[in-house]
């Protein structure tokens, strides 16, 4: 039995978001990571160094492996960010700032300490 059925889920009406340009079905309350898993997608990031694919690892916001671009904002943790109707989700290449891919621009305009 799939987990939605098993937990007797009666979600609100489904809506559409896009992932790399193609429409994907989403349910209210789902995070970006859950929407992508449900659509059979497990990677949505290419690493800065080797361009290797990554997706969810820790599932609780600690590892930062699931970084994704949502509505042009890069470096969002897919396992934490809830989806909204019409969200434009995209594979994050490197730092997510095309052309700004150099040391010190790790987080681009979204500079963070921590």
């Amino acid at each position, binding site marked *: 039995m799939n*987990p939605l059925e098993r*937990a007797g889920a009666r979600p609100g009406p489904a809506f559409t978001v896009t992932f790399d340009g193609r429409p994907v079905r989403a349910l209210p309350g789902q995070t970006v990571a859950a929407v992508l898993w449900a659509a059979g997608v497990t990677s949505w990031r290419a690493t800065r160094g080797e361009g290797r694919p990554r997706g969810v690892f*820790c599932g609780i916001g600690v*590892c930062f492996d699931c970084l994704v671009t949502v509505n042009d904002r890069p470096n969002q943790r897919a396992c934490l960010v809830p989806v909204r109707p019409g969200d434009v989700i995209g594979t994050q290449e490197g730092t997510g700032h095309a052309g700004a891919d150099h040391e010190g621009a790790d987080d681009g305009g979204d500079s963070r300490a921590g």
Partner: protein
Amino acid sequence: MRGQTTRERTTGETVVQAELVVIGAGPAGLAASLAASARGARVVLIDAATETGGQFYRQPAAGLGAGRPEALHHQWRTWERLRDGLAASAVRVLTDHHVWCVERASGGFTVHALLGPEQEQPAETHARAVLLATGGYEHVLPFPGWTLPGVVTAGGAQAMLKGQLVVPGHRAVVAGTGPLLLPVATGLAAAGVEVAALVESTGPGRLARHARALTGKLPEGAGHAARLLRHRVPVLTRHTVVRAHGDTRLTGVTVAALDTAGRVRPGTERQVPCDTLAVGHGMLPHTDLAEGLGCGLDGLAVAVDAEQRTDVPGVWAAGESTGIGGAALALAEGHIAGCSAAAHLRGTVPGPAPAAFKARTKLRSSAAALDAAYAPPAHWPEQVTDDTVVCRCEEVTAGAVRDALDLGAGDERTVKLLTRAGMGWCQGRMCQTAVAGLTGCPPAPSRRSFARPVPLGVLARHHTQEELS
């Protein structure tokens, strides 16, 4: 909402006042908040998640309208008691608050948080006392292929299942070591995933040797074992995953038997096709906020006394942040800590339920036994090839770490400076123990300045306000 005030500063920052602020709404923080509130303390309970419950009682997102969430949980009755108790109490709950720092302020403490999923809007809570119930995160040691999509932490698979009602694939292997692997395997199987194997590196003999201390855990373990049988999940003890295969996504794993010394037995390797590997080697405590406050540590956990007080006056800690021991221990410690904090605020004597002390003593000794029984295989570094990525954020390989050792680095810190291992987004949370293991020294506390990433604008504003006040 007795006596709490909320006001907006001109900066748009929310400010909340309380007597006791509890950080973390898992079993420990819930028990602590209820105990303190029942004894007259004005409590604010803060958590980064959108729902209370922590890791063990992680709730499905409200929008999913789960009618039977208990179908994917254990000990639901205890959760109901905590949930209903919280609803009937005067505890003020602030969810979606990501705390990045707690600082001492005149007459108490200031808790700095960032609100919501985007984590940009700041919020402050002022309180006379602080109780840290921040739990822990999963420990995974590296092996070839562990960065492939489809490889997730065992707890992460569980968190996505309980909170989001999703699974990453159709056929899973659950592997590593520790008591968490059992509920994860049964949880995935119940959610329709074919669990091809549960691979536990500890041998059955080692578990049996600790059987007496583990008796408290056995009924639960037996329940899981029966469920594994029912779902026909093969259990391989004294085995380990030596490699995950795939190019852009996991396609299978190689498992091998271990000898009694924890070395892979040559010739025992075999491949198991799967699209999901849920892997874990135990848990590590979250100690950043405690370290920021200057609290002493005991090994890698926050050090506490018999009343769960840290060595910083006014700061208590409970649950996995003070040592890994499971949800029942977190409940007992939380209760004791909450009673002690309320007594301190009211000038009375703590008086927690005597059963809490008994439970804490018993569960701490079984936690110590579990820890000894479920240690990762002693020779795990031998399986880490030079091209295996160790630091996932900075893509530092085991080869680079070994080169740093050849250059004379003798500890984690020097390896970090030479290779950048541990300097990335996760600040070493995922690779710290692995780097320590490869250098041959015990992991040391990491002293991170912030518990969460903070936009520089928030820090700058914080700094200006400090200068003005």
